[in-house]
């Protein structure tokens, strides 16, 4: 009895060792098998990002590139600036106003695309099968064309001698052309047009799954149209709205071509500001820290998305 016990323990631990060895073997094999994918991920995704991160802690080189002297300057410079005249360190209001413009225009773009995207997606989702494919196809057509070309198409429409102004003048609505080009309005029109499909597609996906009997149920329970929209449709379509908003907000925030072409370059957005650092400004570290900063804003937006969508599903 006394001797049997240790024997049993020994046996148990023996099989435990074997099991552990097999386990270790399996882990190693899994690592080995996934190594190519991991390498690709590390080199392809994290690698460049790490270079950007490292550069953001360096000193700007004389003409381009960086000198390998570590410093936090580039990060401090995002928010604070040494006044060029009295040399005091103060809040970089020029930078803040550029960030604010980017966020404001991106939020407005998102709002505009929701207002136009929701009815569009609803319309498509409520067509019969074949027609639905056709309408979706139309939505994807702009993707075939280069962003720059699409932006120039908008330019042709809204410029002073463009389609819109020519027609309005011919119709006698206005006497002299509306100055739309080179304003924030022009940037908004351009971004809303370019990113609208990114809103319509996730919205369509959400509405397509929508059970229309719920609307009937809502009416049966004496809800008016507005109440059905607010209390029945919107909560169910919400994940689509959030996904679409992220898809529109993120590229809007980093937009470069549209503000440059339609905004006339007078007022920068973050994208243009970053370009200035790598180009004429020749301050690569600041450009790098700004890029990471932009990435952080995007991550905050994504975290919000994850939280919003999980909260939505826990309600179900």
């Amino acid at each position: 009895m006394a001797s049997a016990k240790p024997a049993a323990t020994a046996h148990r631990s023996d099989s435990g060792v074997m099991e552990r060895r097999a386990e270790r073997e399996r882990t190693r094999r899994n690592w080995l098998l996934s190594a190519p994918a991991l390498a690709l991920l590390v080199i392809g995704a994290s690698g460049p990002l790490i270079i950007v991160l490292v550069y953001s802690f360096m000193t700007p080189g004389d003409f381009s590139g960086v000198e390998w002297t570590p410093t936090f300057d580039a990060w401090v410079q995002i928010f604070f600036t040494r006044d060029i005249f009295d040399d005091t360190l103060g809040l970089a209001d020029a930078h803040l106003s550029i960030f604010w413009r980017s966020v404001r225009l991106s939020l407005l773009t998102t709002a505009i695309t929701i207002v136009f995207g929701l009815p569009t997606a609803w319309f498509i989702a409520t067509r019969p099968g074949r027609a639905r494919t056709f309408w979706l196809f139309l939505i994807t057509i702009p993707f075939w064309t280069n962003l720059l070309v699409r932006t120039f198409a908008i330019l042709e429409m809204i410029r002073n001698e463009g389609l819109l102004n020519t027609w309005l003048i011919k119709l006698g609505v206005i006497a002299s052309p509306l100055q739309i080009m080179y304003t924030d309005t022009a940037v908004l029109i351009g971004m809303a047009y370019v990113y609208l499909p990114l809103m319509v597609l996730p919205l369509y996906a959400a509405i397509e799954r929508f059970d229309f009997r719920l609307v009937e149920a809502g009416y049966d329970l004496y809800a008016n149209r507005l109440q059905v929209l607010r209390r029945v449709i919107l909560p169910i379509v919400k994940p689509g709205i959030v996904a679409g908003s992220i898809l529109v907000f993120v590229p809007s925030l980093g937009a470069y071509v549209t503000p440059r072409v339609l905004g006339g370059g007078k007022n920068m957005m973050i994208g243009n500001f970053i370009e200035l650092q790598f180009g004429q400004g020749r301050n690569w570290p600041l450009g790098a820290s700004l890029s990471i900063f932009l990435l952080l804003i995007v991550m905050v937006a994504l975290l919000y998305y994850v939280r919003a969508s999980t909260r939505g599903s826990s309600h179900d």
Partner: protein
Amino acid sequence: MRLSTLTMTAAALLATTTLSFAAGELNIYNWGNYTNPDLIKKFEEKFDVKVTLTDYDSNTTALTKIEAGGHGFDIVVPTGNYVPIYVEKGLLLETRPDEMENFKNVAPRWVDVPWDMGRHYTVPWQWGTTGIAVNKKSYSGDINTSAIFLDPPAELVGKVNVVPEMSDVMNLAIFYVGGEACTEDKEVLRKVRDLLVAAKPKWQSMDYGTTDKLKNGEYQATVNWNGSTFKARQENPDVAYGYPKEGYPLWMDAVAVLKDAKNVENAKLFQNFLMEPENAAMISSFAGYANGISGSAEFMPEKMKGAPELETPEDLQAAGQFLPVCPKSARDIYTAIWTELQK
């Protein structure tokens, strides 16, 4: 007779040598919309070389890409003030254009230039001025002043474009308030900043593409380069060019061979080829700027002869000056002012 013997010899050579040797290559890295395709074709046919042309849009882009290596270019055409940077960084090959056959055609003014004394590295491409272009229909006053964009007359308020070329614009403004190129004088720069910030609401845009927009009347006035203005005037006779009397930048682009060029002999042939008056004239007739080669004028199209954009009036010649590349300390201040301007 001699020609036919030469052709025969060439044919014999072609027959005996490998194909890759006969069909040489040359990779040119130059500003966009700047190189006459006919000039390239002529060079290709004359020397049996296949030329590949790649564009860049700014000196910094070109320098950054070349410094990074692995670009495969043989020839680059930086602005004069960038040449010392290339030389200092050891990026250029000392091809000694001054010992080449056609060097005798380089106008004396362009032999001892500050960026390449005695021309050991570079051959002139084109030179020009940064000034003001105005549509005379909108404004008939004096246009030989930077006030057109720094303190626009009532007729031009809201109709002026400023090219987003930091060095040109900053120095035009510095000259306007009486400072010197690349100044770090705080008093001068404070005036410059206040001047630019106050002028900006009166600008229509800060954009490139000035040739087309002057042509179609989108811009009534803009900071512009002389050759671009010349091109615009060919299709819109109301466009006129002004040389700011307060001071304006001069520049010259220079053709250099890169140290890691793979087709050095062809690149040298190209440098020599460009110093032939007839070929230099082809550069100018395409882009609309003057070149530095004596005797090229007679090969240029009639419309370029005596063009006001190409011939600076005598009393305004002294106001033009070549810009050095400003030191980093000055550039940092300029970037800060530039950012504040576009915030």
